[in-house]
């Protein structure tokens, strides 16, 4: 498979390895120490680290700056970019800025509505949507042009991904929606946290039937539950999240001080099962503020050591 960018994630995937990515949220502070520390905790166990972009609409140190910090430490960041806060001028400008710092992977997202964050009274932008952001990056990279039509002297060298949520409604368009993201230019997909494995496999079946798994690398999202409380909260309060009752029952069945351990085991088991699923190309581990557990999960799921390239 032709390698198009300098992205490490692309290299891992196109060389036929199961990729492992993870995710870190920047601090609500101008001090980058914490995110650098989190990056170092996991760097040997993952191929790349997504940096979230003001996730849940809470103002944080910007994704681009945090990516640059990681890059300077020799780590491999994936720039997450939401279309909520920036218009096409700012988006294209940040893409160039990222590429200028050797950031070669990005994830295009719409972003949570600001109602959930620290600025519910703020305006949102939504000049383009996440599909159109995919198109934009691909246009900039492949055609060497800005949306306005002018040439880009040195186009940004970006491996481009998108999110997918197999559990959102309506289910019947979840496969067509993936096809649409691929048509818009997505090269890899990181999904919403997968807890309902049956439903995920059903979605993958539809994906494989249409041959979409041959056009895009699909990485299911894995988030370990730290407690039964977290599982219940996610089931109740997070829109588009599917947490089966059996999982909640299983966590309730173990003593409180053993629940986080059980949560890790459930996550490892999910990876062991899904890596056998046709079309799964790797995993995206989102251990929200629990990065120290990522190495253990990667090792137990049999993904360590990570492939090396010169």
């Amino acid at each position: 498979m032709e390698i198009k960018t300098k992205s490490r994630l692309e290299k891992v995937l196109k060389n036929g390895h199961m990729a492992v990515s993870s995710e870190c949220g920047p601090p609500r502070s101008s001090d980058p120490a914490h995110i650098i520390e989190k990056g170092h905790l996991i760097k040997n166990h993952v191929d790349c680290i997504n940096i979230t972009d003001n996730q849940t609409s809470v103002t944080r140190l910007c994704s681009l700056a945090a990516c640059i910090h990681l890059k300077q430490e020799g780590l491999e960041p994936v720039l997450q970019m939401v279309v909520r806060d920036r218009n096409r001028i700012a988006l294209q400008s940040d893409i160039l800025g990222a590429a200028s710092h050797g950031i070669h992977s990005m994830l295009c997202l719409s972003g949570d509505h600001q109602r959930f964050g620290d600025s519910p009274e703020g305006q949102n932008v939504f000049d383009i949507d996440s599909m159109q952001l995919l198109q934009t990056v691909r246009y900039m990279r492949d055609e060497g042009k800005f949306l306005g039509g002018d040439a880009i002297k040195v186009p940004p060298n970006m491996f481009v991904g998108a999110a997918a949520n197999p559990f959102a409604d309506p289910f019947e368009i979840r496969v067509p929606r993936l096809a649409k993201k691929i048509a818009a230019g997505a090269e890899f997909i990181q999904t919403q946290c997968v807890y309902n494995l049956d439903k995920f496999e059903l979605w993958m079946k539809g994906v494989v039937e249409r041959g979409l798994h041959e056009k895009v690398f699909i990485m299911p999202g894995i988030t370990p539950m730290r407690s039964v409380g977290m599982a219940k909260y996610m089931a109740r309060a997070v829109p588009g999240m599917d947490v089966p009752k059996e999982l909640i029952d299983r966590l309730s069945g173990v003593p409180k001080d053993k629940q986080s351990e059980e949560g890790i085991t459930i996550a490892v088991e999910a990876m062991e099962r899904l890596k056998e699923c046709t079309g799964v190309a790797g995993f995206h581990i989102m251990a929200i503020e629990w990065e120290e557990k990522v190495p253990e999960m990667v090792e137990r799921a049999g993904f360590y050591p990570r492939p090396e390239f010169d």
Partner: protein
Amino acid sequence: MIVGEQKPFDEVWEMVKSHKQLTVFGCNTCVAVCHQGGNKEAEILASLLKMRATKEGVDIEIVDGGIERQCEHPFFESAKELLEDTEAVLSLACGIGVQFMAQKYKKTPIYPALNTTFLGDVQEDGYFTEKCQACGDCVLGVTGGVCPVTRCCKRLFNGPCGGSSDGKCEISKDIDCAWQLVIDRLKAMGKLDDYEKLTPIKDWSKDRAGGPRSFKLEGF
């Protein structure tokens, strides 16, 4: 139609209480349909203000009136004298009517009694919902007659987002997910395959982003 809601009474009172004379002026078209700004509402608001003035011992002469539409010159004929002689106007029109009067009566303070809220319909008696944001380039033809600009909270042209759940939007269980409605409509019309067509990046220059808009008919 244009939907508006009366401002909190205290806010209205604070705006007008320093005047000696005031005309409370209704607009009997859009904002009368939603029972917020018609000539009848103007009459009621005027009496409430009179009561407040009495209670606070403020000396202010309040009259009320109204016309069919505060956004077109010919309708003002019937209220010519009333408006020319008044010290200030509290208009119950939408923001368009208020501005139209401010332009017409150059020296008269015109205060808005309403918050103009949206362009919407009458779903049932007393229930109004937003339907259009006048983006200047209508896409209803490809979205099954459901406006993504107005009704999708992220105005996605290629929705739904990952937050759509049981037909409701991620921001509230009281808001229908516009993209669920688009898909339901496409399905009902036997056009679900159209869902996979990518909607291109929008030209927002025809929206407010391009500056104030106007449109002139030739030959008038």
